């Protein structure tokens, strides 16, 4: 019996009870770290139950890695305490910013792809890794506009962040597709710029269309074009822990498990093909 490919899903409150009851075969569960920053109460009790049943991944949305503001030490301390308590397999954040001058937009905002931003975000990632005493994964985000100050193509910026900081990349294939469409570049060229050794995790999610722009809503099934791009990514990077994300208009658990099965099938087919070649 071949080993199941390492596919997980995003863990959201509407599915808590169903997952614990059914115990679907999933390689890991990913939560938004900030949802468990509370001091106590039932959220942490739930998380404790899931930690006993599955490997966890803590995916941060609020650290504001790319901000010119100082790192939020309170936020980091909460993340460090949470990671120490539950010992997740992965800790990840986004290659974006969300606050400046102390004001938070609580959204993943685009960085200007400049040498200055690159130096800054690399230093920040190093500081976070030092503070947490572990490597983190950093995820490429979707964007709806390109800042006119940018001087470096996004894929080179992302590759350079990984090369310089030693962080692993959480490569969101949907975000690459969304950005390729929104900004008119070749998504395969983006994948080609990424060294397979740097890819620690892959995300898949659904987008929605708003006029001429694709918006990364995490509120739909993975699009056919994104599955195709995922196949290309798997061919290039090999088997990587892969996650189905769904955050808005959350469907029954069954839908996420179907998406996870599809990802697993693509990973397994690729592994078989590789075995035949060698």
């Amino acid at each position, binding site marked *: 019996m071949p080993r199941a490919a390492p596919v997980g899903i995003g863990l959201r409150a509407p599915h808590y009870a169903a997952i614990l009851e059914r115990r679907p075969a999933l390689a890991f569960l990913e939560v938004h770290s900030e949802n468990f920053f509370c001091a106590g*109460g039932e959220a942490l009790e739930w998380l404790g139950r899931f930690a006993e049943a599955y490997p966890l991944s803590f995916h941060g949305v*609020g650290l504001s890695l790319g901000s010119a503001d100082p790192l939020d030490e309170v*936020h980091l301390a909460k993340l460090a305490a949470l990671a120490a308590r539950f010992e997740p397999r992965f800790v990840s954040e986004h290659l974006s910013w969300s606050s400046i*001058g102390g004001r*938070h937009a609580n959204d993943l905002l685009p960085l200007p792809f400049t040498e200055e931003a690159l130096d800054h975000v690399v230093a920040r990632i190093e500081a976070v890794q030092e503070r947490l005493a572990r490597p983190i994964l950093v995820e490429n985000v979707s964007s709806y506009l390109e800042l006119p100050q940018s001087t470096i193509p996004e894929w080179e910026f992302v590759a350079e962040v990984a090369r310089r900081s030693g962080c692993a990349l959480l490569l969101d294939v949907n975000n690459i597709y969304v950005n390729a469409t929104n900004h008119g570049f070749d998504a395969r060229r983006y994948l080609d710029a990424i060294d397979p050794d740097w890819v620690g995790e892959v995300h898949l999610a659904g987008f929605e269309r708003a006029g001429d722009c694709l*918006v990364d809503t995490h509120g739909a099934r993975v699009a056919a074009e994104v599955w195709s791009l995922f196949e290309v990514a798997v061919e290039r990077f090999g088997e990587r822990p892969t996650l189905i994300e769904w955050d808005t208009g959350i469907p029954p658990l069954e839908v996420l498990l179907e998406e996870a099965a599809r990802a697993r099938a693509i990973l397994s087919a690729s592994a078989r093909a590789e075995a035949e070649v060698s």
Partner: protein
Amino acid sequence: MSALARIQGDFMRSLFEERAADARLEIYRRNVLATLHDALAAAYPVVQRLVGAGFFREAAERFARAVPSRSGDLHLFGGGFAAFLADYPHARSLPWLADVARLEWACHESHYAADAAAFDFAALARVPAERHGEIRFALHPSVRLVRSDHPVVAIWEANQADRDGTPERDAGPDYAVVHRESGAARPRRIERGEWEFLERLAAGATLAAASEAPGDEEAARFLAAALARYVAAGIISGFAAPDAA
């Protein structure tokens, strides 16, 4: 200021203007306001039901522009909404609205507050009876005390999912203790005397000071019974024994 800080400062300002300069920036502006609105709607479901979705969205967006979010943890956003509603000209005809918001924020805080160890009855039994008055009882970290001139607990109860919105009382004042019951935080209306007693305990008063015992036996019995109830309900979760004499 670095170029990065300048770019980010300009971007942030544009997110909180009435309308963005171009369509792509407008996507970000709408997303940010939707996120902040959703965070408020999650913390203030009763306020939202009372005023309706449209009124709530407008109030939430005005609040989000006026009162910045200060953390990457969205659970911390929205503590000032009650004060905002108290001054909101369009809510003037709803004099109880701000107090309902205050009660909901107390529930929100309570829901995420720290846990406490089980009450240590054995340790309490070791305190000599003649020194009971010197004990300082501690409220559970999830306890919040709210008082209002309006019947806010009745309004809160009437606007839970299984109710039609008609409050059982139409006049206050209401004295409420909020705490977690089997996981979920909710308010309970209590007598004014008990509320004031709990408030003094919360401020760190000894049992004797908190009781302000008028000396009659009835009051003492009342307090002993109340104390037992609060320990059983998890509202009182611990105590500090008197210093050894």
